[in-house]
């Protein structure tokens, strides 16, 4: 696969920017932009409602997108619920699960706020109580404590696939096994994992998997909750409205089966078309190749940061357990200044702060925040060289 050549598919790269903020949102290839444009120019109708030709096309397109996403993630089409983003998908599960018989949610401090906050909210409302799996300052979940934390009182184990702070994967095989042995559901936050690695929902064994379109070359405003058929049926309604019910009478409502039960109102059809195009694009490359490419970049990235005098790299010091993502600080220079200067000096787009994962960043030892470089398929070793050179200049300010 010629990764240099595929850069031509990304219009923004023509501006000679170095985009290292893909964990926030990825760049979009023309194929995705074109798919969205096609919906608005050629269809622009609502699916599953009207009977005219354009509406039929919209239904075909929307359900076709669902099938494409299902194929990409390794699930059945009716296991794919379209949501606004990963945040909505995570909220859907955490807030719609029944905690009357089992009230414990097990999670970690390494989670993104999108997962952490709905869980904390459930505890605040008295619906559930939270137990945190211990994690190390390197951002690794303590495998040894999994059996201790997950018990017969556990309703849900909610955990990341890959963190957005260190790019490290959770020990999901063991967690899923222990959770299921105890009759608990497993919700995996795949917002960082799905775009960067081979994730097959069936092989993963989890009950629910949430991810966003915009972090995997797709458009913003579209995400997915993938859930086992039986598990989805266990969830209560979340956002209800048009096309979520089979019959509506004032003395009783009969809701549709999932995924329709959770897709209230007009959906983001253009977004679904764009997400399907993104899945198609990534499938053509092959997620195995994506992983290999990122692993090469990860090694080089870790090496580059490690070579800067005064730099502190958070998380594991090797790239073995990472995707191409690294959080760091430069001694004596504030994280925002590093990010802003990289932008001014070499058009390098980075993120700085807590990355919507404040407890995780604080746990790593960056009490005031850090800088994050997150790469994707369109990044190159040459860009990492330019990044290294720029960081070297900025690091001088702290000496």
């Amino acid at each position: 696969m010629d990764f240099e050549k595929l850069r031509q598919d990304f219009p923004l790269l023509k501006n000679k920017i170095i985009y290292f903020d893909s964990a926030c949102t990825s760049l979009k290839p023309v194929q995705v932009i074109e798919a969205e444009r096609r919906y608005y120019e050629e269809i622009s109708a609502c699916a599953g409602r009207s009977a005219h030709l354009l509406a039929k096309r919209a239904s075909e397109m929307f359900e076709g997108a669902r099938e494409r996403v299902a194929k990409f993630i390794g699930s059945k089409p009716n296991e794919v619920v379209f949501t606004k983003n990963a945040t909505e998908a995570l909220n859907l599960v955490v807030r719609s699960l029944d905690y009357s018989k089992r009230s414990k949610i097990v999670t970690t401090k390494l989670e993104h706020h999108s997962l952490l906050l709905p869980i904390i909210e459930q505890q605040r409302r008295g619906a559930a109580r939270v137990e945190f799996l211990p994690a190390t300052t390197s951002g690794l979940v303590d495998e040894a404590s999994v059996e201790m934390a997950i018990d017969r009182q556990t309703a849900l184990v909610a955990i990341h696939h890959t963190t957005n702070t260190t790019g490290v994967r959770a020990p999901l095989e063991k967690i899923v096994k222990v959770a299921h042995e105890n009759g608990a559901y497993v919700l995996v936050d795949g917002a960082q994992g799905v775009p960067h690695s081979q994730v097959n929902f069936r092989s993963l064994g989890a009950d629910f998997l949430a991810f966003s379109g915009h972090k995997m070359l797709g458009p913003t405003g579209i995400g997915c909750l993938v859930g086992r058929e039986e598990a989805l049926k266990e969830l209560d309604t979340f956002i209800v409205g048009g096309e979520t019910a089979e019959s509506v009478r004032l003395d009783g409502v009969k809701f549709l089966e999932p995924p329709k039960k959770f897709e209230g109102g007009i959906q983001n059809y253009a977004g679904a078309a764009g997400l399907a195009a993104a899945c198609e694009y990534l499938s053509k490359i092959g997620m195995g190749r994506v992983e290999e490419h990122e692993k090469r970049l990860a090694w080089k990235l870790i090496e580059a940061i490690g070579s800067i005098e005064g730099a502190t790299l958070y998380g594991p010091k090797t790239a073995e357990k990472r995707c191409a993502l690294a959080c760091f600080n430069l001694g004596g220079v504030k994280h925002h200044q590093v990010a802003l200067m990289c932008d001014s000096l070499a058009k390098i787009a980075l993120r700085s702060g807590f990355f919507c994962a404040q407890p995780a960043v604080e746990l790593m030892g960056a009490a005031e925040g850090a800088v994050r470089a997150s790469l994707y398929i369109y990044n190159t070793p040459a860009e990492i060289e330019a990044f290294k050179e720029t960081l070297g200049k900025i690091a001088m300010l702290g000496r």
Partner: protein
Amino acid sequence: MLCFVALFVFAFLSLFSAKYRPLAKRAFGCVLRKATLRPCEAGLDEELRAKSIAEIMRVSPRAAVFVNKHFELFSFAFTLLFFLSLAFTAQGVANFVLYGNCNGPEGGFCIYSELQNPALLKSPTTLQGIRAGNLSSDIVVFEFGCYVCPYTAGEENKVRKMLEEYKDRVQFVFKPFPLPSHPYSLEAAVAAACASEGGKYWEYRAELFKDQHKYSSQGDAAFKKTASDLNISGFDECYDKRKFLSQVEATLKEGKECGIYGTPTFFVGGKAFVGKNSADQAEAEIKRLLGRN
């Protein structure tokens, strides 16, 4: 610290371009928080710092390191300078409004005056004033001047030569325009009118321009002493009664209506020439008009 400066700069730029308004809003938020002793949340100060250091780094990494290390000190000094220059500018504007010159009563070079456009001035329509030369000539040279203004004095020699050379072909009208920024300017104009009544205007005028400082500082006594030295009869009575005050005020009013913003101002054939070297420009215009006739 820099957000204080940023607020003024971006607020000013916002008047002309909408793209600066979000920045002005951020700066305002930052200033508001700093004024209430809270840290700035807008991130504008960090952004300004990073961008400034990055720009310096392009030129000299060493200088960037130095400025970054002492950034708070630099931004404090910069802010102080900014507010000082703002205060001086405000003072200059106030002086300009009150005295017609940004330096106040002392006068001198004023950028606001330089920025004014002579093309917008209107030529006078009356021959009221001190007249000389060929009084029946169609070519009239008007001069609005102040007897204690150094710029009017600076052009005087050229005016005398011009009068001598073109006295048969050109009519010359001097209109006193006493600038309030110069002490005793009005009295000087009244005194010159009294000297004119006594038949020794040009001699008296020469004395006034010869040592302006004397008249600006000594006032009445100096005006009378000069008249006495020139043997101008009836001067003291004329001067004490301010006999020609209304005439002077009339030319002053006329000058204001013409839009005069500095002296000397010459009008030749409808064209205006202001300030330094204006007599040369007026002469060039006279030559052009005579050549055409």
